[in-house]
């Protein structure tokens, strides 16, 4: 019995050490973001700040560092992109499960094939397509792409979910004279609210965190998404204004951390979904 207590004590000790190790980078980043530039240069990173310069640093990252514009753009890309992807994917999923076109599994694979390739496979033709259609460096261009890339995974999850909807309800609705679109809007969608919310947050996070397409398909400060803005900021200022850049990194993480804190359980479930799908 005491041996069991001993080994459990050891475990707790090891875990405490690992927790401290894991939190140190975030802790020190936060501490440095609290300091003024001068103070950050003169003190050791783990020394407590004298004043409270966080607001000033955030303000600097937002306006002088031009992260504010990217922040607003990314809200649009992630919010609208995820929502549109869910609308299109749910329509397609409804067609595959309820309306049964010929070869539904073939159609599913065609759309799902969009997630199979590494992203490098899309870059070159997209870049030149965007150049020739003047979608390059435009908000609509990025929004269209983010919508497209979110669709396959949304379809995967929604199609799975739709197959669990009871056929009895649908037969009853048909007898009541509901059209197909009525069945989609009045039965399929209301019965999928939980899955759709989890999916929305999951896709919002993905689009928000994207860097690769942001730097490939845009360049202007008022078009490029948040992570492209942050990478640009760090490239220019990382040695000149360390607290400002770190405040920027924290600022860029606020929405996804909020999503994680508020809806952590859903997000972890979303990750389990992703394992079976992406």
């Amino acid at each position, binding site marked *: 019995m005491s041996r069991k207590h001993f080994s459990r004590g050891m475990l707790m000790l090891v875990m405490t050490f690992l927790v401290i190790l894991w939190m140190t980078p975030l802790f020190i980043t936060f501490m440095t973001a609290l300091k003024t530039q001068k103070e950050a240069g003169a003190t050791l990173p783990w020394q407590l700040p004298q004043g409270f310069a966080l607001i000033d640093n955030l303000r600097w990252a937002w306006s002088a560092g031009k992260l504010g514009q990217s922040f607003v753009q990314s809200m649009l890309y992630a919010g609208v992109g995820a929502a549109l992807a869910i609308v299109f994917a749910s*329509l397609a999923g409804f067609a595959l499960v309820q309306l049964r076109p010929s070869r539904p599994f073939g*159609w599913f694979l065609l759309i799902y094939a969009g997630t199979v390739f590494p992203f490098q496979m*899309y870059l070159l033709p997209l870049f030149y397509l965007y150049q020739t259609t003047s979608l390059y460096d435009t908000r609509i261009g990025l929004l269209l*792409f983010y919508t497209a890339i979110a669709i396959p995974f949304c379809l995967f999850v929604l199609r799975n979910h739709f197959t669990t909807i009871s056929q009895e309800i649908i037969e009853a609705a048909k007898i009541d004279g509901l059209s197909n679109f009525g069945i989609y809007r009045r039965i399929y969608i209301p019965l999928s609210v939980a899955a759709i919310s989890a999916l929305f947050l999951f896709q919002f996070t993905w689009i928000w965190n994207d860097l690769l397409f942001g730097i490939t398909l845009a360049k202007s400060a008022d078009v490029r998404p948040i992570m492209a803005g942050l990478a640009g900021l760090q490239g220019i200022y990382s040695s000149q204004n360390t607290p400002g850049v770190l405040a920027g990194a924290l600022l860029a993480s606020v929405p996804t951390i909020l999503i994680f804190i508020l809806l952590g359980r859903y997000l972890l479930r979303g990750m389990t979904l992703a394992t079976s799908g992406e």
Partner: protein
Amino acid sequence: MNTETETAVIYRQSPAKLHSFRNWVEPYLYLFPAVLFVGVFLLYPAVYTFYISFTKWDGLNPPQFIGLQNYFQIVKEPVFQTSLRNTLIWVVATLLFPVMLGLMLAVFVNRIPLQGFYKSVFYLPYAISATSGAVIWGFMLSPVGVVNAFLREVGLGGLARSWLIIPPWNTIVMLIAFTWQTTGTNMILFLVGLQSIPTDPIEAAKLDGANAFQIFRHITLPLLKPITTVVITLAVVNSFKVFDLIWVMTQGGPYRSSETLAVTMYRESFVQFRLGFGASIASLLSIIVILFSVVYLRSIFRQES
């Protein structure tokens, strides 16, 4: 299949031909937006990249077909060889650290209280983006950064160095940053697996006097095999795809010493403008990733089609 013949029958029998045509076309109307978006922005570019990989192309004039020349040429380039070697290091290191450590943490956390707390702590680095993580580690590892300051403070100043500029240290420290960010997700997946395995065999083994390690080695690990397969395949596939972290921390440098295939593809395409090379690296990467993906895609779609 069945529906096809059904609609055909309706089509022949129904007096209102227009109505049955509507029935036939309706599913495709619902499918159309998704197929259009995926086709234009994902499938067409993927197919076109594959085509470009067999051409000489400057982005302005029409591509010229040159067969496999890009592939033959690229494998001879030292840059590509370094990149390939780094990629393999990333794959192996991902299995050694984020996956093994994730499994270890899951086994530990499964045996002590406060699971929710530990899940949050180890998942948090993943909740901030790869880009933010890279900015944070760039700050930790800069010549005047936290790591060097700490080493000097504890009297190990001799070990302090420009971590991101000296190979192979730049790759090693990026692997540490990557481990910090991704171990939590593996831990959570393993935890899900651990909590779904039956407890009876473990109880029986305990009664027979097996120790903790024996139980883990001979009972838990074999029962965990399905989830382990998923985690390992995902980790391997993702390690081939790492881009953000490397691009923000070193841009693959200095002198392209820390590039992986994903980074080399980007640099060849958008910095050196050798588009054919870029496309052939992308195609090679796709083939590797798809081969690995087949393992778990097969397990997902086992029940279907």
